[in-house]
């Protein structure tokens, strides 16, 4: 288990702020599930297939592994400008 500080955007950040700190194994789905468990109000939006994961500044597949210290972000569908 590792500690992750996860950055959230848009509606994901609305309920409890743009950062969530969770403990999870080093994969994107594990971190996503940990954030969803910690913030039930955004669980549906967070686990929607359209919500993308971004690790160290690059989009990654939904099941990507993580290296300790990686910066993890979850991005809902963009609104456009």
């Amino acid at each position, binding site marked *: 288990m590792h500690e992750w500080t996860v950055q959230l*955007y848009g509606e994901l950040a*609305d309920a409890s702020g743009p950062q969530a700190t969770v403990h999870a194994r080093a994969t994107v789905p594990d971190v996503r599930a940990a954030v969803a468990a910690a913030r039930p109000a955004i669980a549906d939006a967070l686990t929607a297939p359209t919500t993308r994961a971004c690790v160290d*500044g690059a989009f990654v597949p939904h099941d990507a592994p993580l290296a300790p210290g990686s910066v993890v972000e979850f*991005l*809902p569908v*963009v*609104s*456009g*400008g």
Partner: protein
Amino acid sequence: MSGIDTRVVAEPIDPAQELHTFLDRAAGAGGVASFTGVTRTTDADGGIIDALVLDAHPTLTVPSLASIATAAQARFALSAATVVHRSGVVAPGAPIVFAATAAPHRREAIDALDYLMDRVKTEAVFWKAELRGTTRRWIAPRDADRADRARWE
């Protein structure tokens, strides 16, 4: 000087100043087109909104604008293009986006601006909410926005 200039700003946009600056950059072009988007006072159902809130990404939003502007430049042979977009809380009536294009002839400049804005409205990395009091309603591109975007495929 010419080329692509894309920015996300937290301060108010001054469209007149932006156009003035762009005209300097576009020296030599035969056609310059510009667009200013202004925050509406109502939502799609006619309800009054207090403001729009734009959440931007620190490293992805500007590249998303640059990618769109670069595509417009390549597609329409532009000599220069700019997009300046607000982030944060934008009051009704305030400019939310300024875009401009420069080309040898007017048709390319106008068409490129239309293309560029259709893509910005659907693809730029922003999360946008209508603010009423302390309540935010997050909004997605409308079907009409997607239809506008599809015209260019």
